[in-house]
């Protein structure tokens, strides 16, 4: 018997000028997620149940890039992706291109447990979601005003890039000494 352990993340590559209050919000959500997972583990929940539980919470909160608050495509739509893996038997499930499923991570688990496949995408994933009766939302549910503004800035800066969050307190064109892929880090974060 080993002791339990848990880790969560909300993305890498953070604007060094991220305002303190946004840092605090992120830390608070991460702490809540840890406590949720710890409570479940103390109740003898399985590792698989706990990772799904915690990621569902992160998907439901618009603070990070998943579920509600997801990054937008160039068309202004949401195409979400998720995967889950059970180490005991190396079972896995994944989905891509889902646009109405409230919690893509739970759909990924259903792919693993209720389908003969490991990975479903786009219309196939959406059809499977309907068959399984998972909770859905209109695409608009996932689109936050912040992200609409960030997409506008990304288009103005002609950046299709590795990550998306432009701090609302700053302009996309602001010079930053830290660069990623040749572009100021300030146009990324937090991913």
């Amino acid at each position, binding site marked *: 018997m080993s002791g339990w352990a848990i880790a969560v993340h909300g*993305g890498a*590559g953070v604007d060094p000028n991220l305002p303190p209050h946004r*840092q605090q919000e992120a830390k608070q959500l991460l702490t809540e997620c840890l406590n949720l997972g710890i409570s479940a583990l103390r109740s003898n929940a399985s590792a698989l149940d706990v990772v799904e539980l915690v990621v569902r919470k992160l998907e439901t909160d618009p603070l990070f890039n998943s579920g509600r608050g*997801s990054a937008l495509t160039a068309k202004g739509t949401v195409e979400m992706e998720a995967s889950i893996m059970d180490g005991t038997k190396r079972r896995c499930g994944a989905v891509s291109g889902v646009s109405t499923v409230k919690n*893509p991570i739970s759909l990924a688990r259903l792919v693993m447990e209720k389908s003969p496949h490991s990975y479903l995408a786009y219309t196939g994933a959406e059809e499977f979601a309907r068959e399984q009766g998972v909770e859905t939302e209109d695409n608009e549910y996932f689109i936050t005003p912040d992200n609409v503004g960030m997409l506008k800035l990304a288009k103005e800066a002609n950046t299709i890039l590795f990550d998306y969050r432009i701090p609302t307190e700053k302009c996309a064109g602001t010079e930053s000494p830290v660069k990623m892929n040749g572009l100021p880090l300030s146009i990324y974060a937090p991913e």
Partner: protein
Amino acid sequence: TVGCVVVDSQGRCAAATSTGGLMNKMSGRIGDSPLIGAGTYACEVCGVSCTGEGEAIIRGTLAREVAAVMEYKGYELQQAVDFVIKDRLDEGFAGLIAVSNKGEVAYGFNCNGMFRGCATENGFMEVGIWE
């Protein structure tokens, strides 16, 4: 991107990752998060979830690589994470979180920050952003 990795008190590891991808991405773009072995992996030894430049994570099969060096090189968890971040990311920027079946937790990243938190049964708990 968000992720969670857990080892329970019976030593079972699991990993999960979820994302909206990139702002202003092309419709149809698939990143690392749904790709087993790239952004997410779990086996008897460990569980791993990655975040960052998806294309670099895919090239490096980052999550599976952590398990592979533990299995084949005998590395400890943190040692495996450090090796993968340093030697398997070419010019990409990314981070990952991991747990082992021994109840260890580890993380690593080669960019300036990663939103992360971790806790273990013996009372350790940490939440951070920067190095």
